[in-house]
Structure formats: C-alpha cells, structure tokens
C-alpha cells in the first residue's frame, strides 16, 4: 500500500485502473459462452425434433389403414415378396438395412404406398371416399362416422394389446412392448444391482488401497465394451449356455436379454455406487470403529445406509441404461411382441422396436409416427430419471451427510 504512494512515476487513477475493452477478449468470451449453451440447446432440440416427427401418429389414422387396404385390393398379396427387395433399395426413403430386414420379417405392405404417402398428402381425401370397405375391416373405425374422431381412434389403439404394425389392418398396441421392456429391465436389475453394489462395497470398504486402484478401472473397462459386442456374446455364447443350463424352449428370451443388459448396467451402477460410498466422511467410519464395530459391521450398518440416496441414484441410472438399450435387445431378446409374464418367453422392447422397424417404414405415416412417439417416451423417461437422480437424490445425500 505504502509503496504505491512512494513510487513517484506510477500513479493509479480510476481511469488507468479501469479494465480496457479488448475486442478479442470480448469475442472469445461470447463465443465460448454461446458454444457452451449448445448442450442445453441440444436437449431442447432433441425433444422438439423427435416429438415433431411423432406427430403423424396423432392424425394419420384413417390414412394408414385406407392406403394399405387400397394397395392390397389392387395388387395380389403374393406379388410383394419378390418385388420387395428391389423396390426397397430404389426408394430413397427406405433406410439402412431395409433390404435385408424387410425381406426377412415383413415382406408385405408399404413399398407400394410410398409415393402417395410421401409426396401427396392432399390425395388422402380422395382415398377416403373409396375406402369405406376398408373401414369395415377395422372394427375401431367402422363404429363411428368416418370423418371426425379419427385422432381418438389412433390414440386408443396405442393401448391395445397387439403390436402388428405391418399387416393389412395395422395395430399399434404398445402394451406388449411396455411389458417386454419392463420384464427385461426387471431381470437385468435383479442381476446387476446386487452384484454391482456388492462389488462397490468390496472396492470401497474391504479391499486394500492397492487392489482398489486396480478394481475400479478394470470394471470401468466393461463400460467400454460396445453394446453390440455384448449383444453378440449373448446371442452366440450365453443364449446356448443358458438354454443348456435351464432347458427352456425359446433360445432368445427376456431372461437372456436381461442378463446381457445386466452386463451393460453393472459398470454404471458400480461406478456411481462406489463414488457414493467413498464420499461418506471418514468420521462416520471412525466413530463406528471406535465404538467397537467390526469392519463389515461398519460397512453394512454405517457406510451403506449413509449412501442410500447415491445407491438409489445409481440403480435409477442403471434402469435408464437398460430401458434405452437397443442393440442388446435387438440381438438377444428374440423380438416377438408377446405380453406374457413368463421370463423365458421372447419379448420385444421399446427401443428394439424402433431399431428394427424404422428401416422399413414409410416416412410420415402412422407407423413412422408411432415409432417416434416411442422415442419421445423413452427420452422423457430417461430425462425424468436423470432429473430425479440429479436433484432429489443429491439434495438428500447432502442433507444426510451434513446431518440436518
């Protein structure tokens, strides 16, 4: 302080101390800030665009049936199988593995109706008039006057029990898909949660420090396994092994899929649980040990309960991981939309449905919209899980540790 006044040549005025405006500084800061906002914008954009593409599900109900009905009236159903592969590869709107998957699973439908659906939405009015016979096939539509309550018809069919998107009378019942997804998730969590939590407990409470430094990165390596590799392993090796072990009928089922997904969920649960357990203040453990509790008593009765919110968050995020897992579901669950509760039955999960069918739909029709609607639901579900894990759990954890 004094030296400032003592130095003769230097005088600090308000003017000289004011921050200079530098354009490059200003520019850099603004640029960096706006790039950082990209992540927020992305979340909004993802929701907006996925939801936007799902709009056809809300309005195109009669079109979907009538279009198809018209096609089936016009052409002989048998002719589709052969022409399908070429037609599929020529249309720009059919994607990815369309040739392969369309040829294998559902040879009928769609390719013929494509130009009309994609290019000329105006033509639907005309089609509607000619298609009263089509409505008779569909019990839903025939019950009501054909013009007004269309959107209700489409929405109510979402709650039916049948998922037959590609047939003369398509039905988009999401219930079997939900049942399948929940079944797989439940099985996966039954395996993943205890194993991962116990492993985290070992790593944080029982293992010596040198071992701990090895366990954590090693398990995190499992997180680096691509899901397609886990799916392949489940499909080729695990499915046969488990079938021989338990002797059930269908080789690919929700049990195999669930165990495979447990492999994907374990690193997620392990990492977060481990972090939560190590974040417990040492004073907790020291107090417990000082009272004469043994190592395992401290771990089970002190550390573990104190970290419950964190473990809860870990399991939630594990559920989110399994819920949206696509490749493993596609490869290991058998992909049949059954809604029974038997764990040894094939199932079709929500995410796998998107992955398997998006390649063969007509852009802008009901099926396309429903797939995007499923996508929106998956996104909302994951977003809420993440929000709960983030805010509720974190708040609780902090309170608990601070002892309020």
């Amino acid at each position: 302080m004094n030296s400032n006044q003592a130095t003769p040549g230097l005088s600090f005025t308000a003017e000289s101390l004011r921050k200079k405006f530098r354009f490059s500084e200003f520019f850099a800061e603004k640029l960096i800030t706006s790039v950082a906002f990209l992540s927020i914008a992305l979340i909004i954009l993802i929701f907006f665009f996925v939801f936007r593409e799902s709009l056809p599900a809300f309005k195109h109900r009669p079109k979907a049936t009538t279009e198809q009905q018209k096609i089936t009236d016009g052409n002989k159903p048998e002719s589709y199988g052969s022409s399908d592969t070429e037609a599929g590869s020529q249309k720009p709107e059919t994607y990815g593995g369309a040739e392969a998957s369309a040829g294998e699973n559902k040879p009928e439908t769609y390719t013929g109706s494509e130009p009309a659906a994609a290019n000329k939405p105006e033509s639907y009015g005309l089609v509607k008039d000619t298609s009263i016979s089509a409505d008779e096939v569909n019990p839903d539509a025939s019950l009501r006057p054909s013009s007004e309550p269309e959107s209700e018809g489409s929405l109510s069919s979402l709650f039916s029990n049948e998922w037959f998107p590609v047939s003369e009378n398509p039905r988009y019942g999401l219930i079997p898909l939900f049942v399948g997804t929940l079944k797989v998730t439940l099985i996966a969590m039954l395996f993943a949660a205890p194993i991962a939590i116990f492993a985290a407990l070992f790593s944080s409470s029982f293992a010596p420090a040198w071992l701990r430094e090895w366990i954590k990165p090693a398990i995190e390596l499992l997180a680096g396994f691509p899901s397609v590799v886990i799916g392949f392993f489940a499909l080729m090796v695990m499915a046969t092994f488990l079938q021989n072990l338990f002797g059930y009928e269908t080789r690919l089922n929700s049990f195999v899929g669930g165990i495979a997904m447990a492999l994907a969920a374990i690193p997620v649960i392990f990492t977060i649980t481990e972090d939560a357990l190590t974040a417990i203040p040492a004073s907790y453990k020291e107090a417990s040990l000082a009272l004469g509790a043994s190592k395992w008593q401290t771990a089970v009765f002190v550390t573990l309960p104190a970290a419950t919110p964190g473990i809860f968050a870990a399991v939630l995020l594990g559920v989110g991981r399994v819920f949206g897992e696509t490749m493993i579901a596609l490869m290991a669950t058998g992909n049949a939309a059954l809604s029974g509760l038997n764990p040894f039955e094939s199932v079709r999960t929500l995410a796998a449905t998107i992955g398997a069918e998006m390649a063969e739909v007509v852009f802008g029709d009901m099926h396309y919209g429903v797939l995007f609607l499923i996508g929106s639901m998956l996104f909302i579900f994951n977003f809420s899980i993440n929000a709960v894990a983030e805010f509720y759990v974190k708040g609780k954890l902090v309170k608990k540790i601070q002892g309020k």
Partner: protein
Amino acid sequence: MKIRLKNKIIGGTVTAASALSVILILGIIVIMLVVTFIGGKDTLTWKFLTTFPEEGMMKGGIFPAIYGTALLVIIMSIAAVPFGTITAIYLTEYAHEKSWIAQTIRFAVRTLATVPSIIFGLFGLGFFIKFVGAGMDNWFLGGHLKWAQPNLLWGSLTMALLTLPVVIVSVEEAIRTVPRELREASLALGATKWQTIKRVVLPGSVSGIMTGTILAVGRGAGEVAPILFTGAAYYLATLPTSVSDQFMNLGYHIYVMSTQSANVDQAMPIQFATTLVLLMLTFSLNLTAVLIRSRLRRRMK
C-alpha cells in the same frame, strides 16, 4: 460367544459375497475377451483386414467396414472435440461454479450422457436428414435429392452429439488439474484471460483433451444404434468417396451378420473375427485412456 460366532459368519458371508461379485464381474470380462479371441483368432489375418467381403459376405474380409468406421470417428472427432473442449473451458474458466447457467449446462451435459443412443439416431433422422438435409436440398439443389438421405456426414455428426459429454467431462477434469498458481502467475504478468487460457491452461490440459478424444473415439467406434438410420449401410461394393455417401461400419456389420445373414453358422468365424477386431479396438483405446487418466490423477495429488 454365540453372538460373536454369528457375527463372524455374517461378516464372512458379506465379505465373501462382495469379493465374489468383483471376481464375477472381472471373470465375465475375461471370459468375453477369451471367447471372442478363440472364436476369431483363426480368421483374423492381415488379408481379412484388407480385403472386401465376398460371396454375400460369407467370405472375404472387412476392409470397407474398418475404413467406414475410421472415417466415422475422424469426422466425429473433428466435430465433437472442439465443441467439447470449448464447453469445458466455459465451465471451468468463465462460469461461476454456483451460477444457474453453469448448473444448467452441467445438468444438460449429464442428461446428454444418459440419453439412450437410439434417441440420437432418431434425432439424427428427424433433424439432420429430414430438417437440415431436406432444407439444403431445397435451397441449394432445387429439390434434387442429395443431402436428405442417410450419409457419412449425418452419421458422424449424430455420433458427435453422442460423444460430446465424454469429451466435456474428461477435458474439464484435466483443466482442473492445471494449478491455480500458474493461472495467477500468467495474469499477474499482465496476460489477459484469453491469453492465459490459450498459453497456459490449454497446453497444460493437452493430455486431458487427448484422453477425451480417445474415449470418444472408443465410444463412437462401438455404438451402432445412432447410425442405424443415419448412414450405415448393409453392404457397399465401393468405399465412400465423399461425405454424402453411405458407409459400412464394424458394429453394424456384426449386427447384420449375426442376425440377418443368409447362413449364420457359416458366417460364424467372420462374425467372431469382426467382433474381435472391434473389441480389440475399443478395448485398447479405453485402456490407453485409463492409463493416461491415472497418470493425470496422480499428478493432481
């Protein structure tokens, strides 16, 4: 005495169960590596890596899939790494730790990290192909269909969005290991904030940016769901020559070969070898990242 014995039994059980869980997980990792290695090692030759598939993909190599995957991760890194690094710089250098903006961005990044990969695929289809691509076709090509279909660019950009959080998190961690004193020294010498970041902070966190890139590449090379409908092709007779071409991909190759090939059993050795290639690639990338990271953490201590 009795209580003590009971305690010992429970304690032993808990310890054993937890140790067993760790062994189980590590065992599964080893089994997966070994099984893929045994299944694929005979087919995996230099020729397999450098030739095209033949006879309906029943024979021949996987060169186009490797090439396509390489292009994908390169374009992806070019897009994801700068954006991820800049976001990390904002979070560590510019934003206040407790400000709502920083909190929201952090929340958004964590959400992005947990969004299922198939949703990115849907977003790529809805945004890049049907919105941006179709818009580009309408504006520049007068409706001629070029960009409004799946291609390498859209696939890579979709993958970049998926790997963005990976980059952000590791770069942020690295920037935090740059000692505060270095920044203060730089500022005290009269450097501006941006000069400090450019000359002191960024050079100090190069290893973190590298880790982030490696992790992102490892993730991007293995993910299939995002490119299912944004660019991956079942089979291509030629290599992609521009970003508007479709491409083949290792993970997608495994998927179609194991679920949709004409004769799954006959193609089994090729499938195992392809899986082995992909697994070795992602495994070695992740291992490298883990090693760099542990060195970084040691430096922090």
